């Protein structure tokens, strides 16, 4: 999480336990560090919290609040002095149950949502299920935030209300998408489809050519992804000619050329190999 708490150290109470935290540090992070479990769906360490799914609701109060308490999203709520947090109180469970009930109405076919709802004792939604179940997306927005963090920012939410969904501009294939499939990897409901066949990958209705090893033909990432991230990282295209296996063989061959001499690698940061030289030059010579 890029949120750096700079506040002073205070003591708060979570589920009856006294826990140390810094003011400004988000409650979810504090609880996790203390080994206290709070369900969180749209939270991912790679991106800032957004408070979209509301699964991480907890009840907060203070001794000075005179019995008043409220529900807040733990992923986004900054620690303050004297906070008393309940992660599984009756109002919290009630709120999470309603969420699951609503998700089940929206995505009755989602195995993820079904399982989640079952954990809260819901087999059938008490709301009107979606007439035509649109997709299995719970609109947590994690894919959008991850894509933005990676750079392309290719997808967003379109439409409003019941027709709201994640898509590219005009609901067509997103022009900025590089096909890295990170969105699909982080999606909690696994509802973003990625199809790979004959050296291509299709995601968000956009077809990508996969990068193939020039020796053995293995594939892993798309050509657009390699170009895009390669440019960001300042790597030349010669990096991607071979797959990892064929590169390891090449590394072995080059290291063996100077057979009989010790190859010293690793552990020293500064003193270890530099990546932008031919592997052969990493073999030490006396």
């Amino acid at each position, binding site marked *: 999480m890029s949120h750096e708490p700079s506040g002073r150290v205070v003591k708060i109470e979570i589920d009856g336990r006294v826990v140390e935290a810094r003011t400004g540090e988000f409650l979810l992070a504090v609880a996790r560090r203390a080994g206290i479990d709070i369900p969180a769906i749209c939270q991912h*360490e*790679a*991106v800032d919290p957004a408070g979209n799914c509301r699964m991480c609701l907890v009840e907060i109060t203070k001794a000075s609040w005179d019995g008043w308490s409220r529900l807040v999203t733990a992923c986004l709520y900054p620690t303050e002095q004297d906070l008393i947090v309940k992660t599984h109180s009756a109002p919290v469970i009630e709120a999470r149950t309603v969420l699951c009930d609503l998700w089940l109405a929206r995505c009755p076919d989602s195995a993820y949502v079904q399982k989640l709802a079952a954990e809260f004792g819901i087999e059938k939604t008490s709301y009107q299920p979606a007439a035509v179940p649109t997709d299995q997306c719970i609109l947590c927005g994690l894919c959008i935030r991850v894509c933005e*963090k*990676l*750079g392309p920012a290719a997808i967003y939410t379109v439409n409003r209300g019941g027709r709201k969904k994640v898509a590219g501009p005009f609901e067509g294939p997103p022009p900025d998408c590089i096909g*890295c*499939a*990170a969105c699909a*990897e*982080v999606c909690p409901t696994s509802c973003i489809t990625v199809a790979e066949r004959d050296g291509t990958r299709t995601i968000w209705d956009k077809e990508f050519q996969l990068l193939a090893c020039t020796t053995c033909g293995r594939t*892993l*990432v798309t050509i657009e*992804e*390699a170009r895009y*991230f*390669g440019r*960001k*990282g*300042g*790597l030349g295209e010669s*990096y*991607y000619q*071979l*797959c*990892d*296996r064929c*590169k*390891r*063989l*090449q*590394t*072995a*061959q080059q*290291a*063996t050329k100077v*057979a*009989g*001499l*010790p*190859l*010293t*690698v*690793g*552990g*020293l*940061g*500064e*003193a*270890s*190999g*530099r*990546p932008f*030289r031919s*592997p052969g*030059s*990493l*073999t*030490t010579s*006396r």
Partner: protein
Amino acid sequence: MPDMIFVVDVARCSACQKCEIACAVHNVKEMNAARARIAIFPRPSPEFRAGSARWGEARRALPVEGGRESPPLNEASGTPVTCLQCDDAGCVRVCQVGALQRSPTTGAIEIDHAHCVRCKMCVPACPFGNMTWDEPLRQVAKCDLCHGMPQCALACPTGALKYRPVSEVAMPAIGTACGGR
């Protein structure tokens, strides 16, 4: 600054592959060398050269494993390949979410799987092929020196892989180690 260093002495490797097994068992709980973060590339020992009649005979008699033909272990030697924990590492450069960070204690570049979004770009970014994709785990995988207790070095019977105090290793001048700057 880490006080231990991982040392590979190619000349001592007998291609027994104990390091690969130790690595796989430790990291993925499976006796499967193909999932290890270190790879041993068998090569004939000097008295058993490729192309010689004995070599050809032995090769024909062997099954092809994972696409590479292994010569009889007792007559072969090998070249170990594992992460170099590069100073200015390609994998670190391409990771857009900061999931790859150098451990201050071991100096190894470690993957924080909670940060990783599995874009897999670090795999092609490694010039040596040491970043891999572990399909059963659905995670990228690399050597992290086992957080300071490299299992491969513990398993190596010949001293080809060692984890030694920096002060005891005769380090070539940094310039030489890197092929000159």
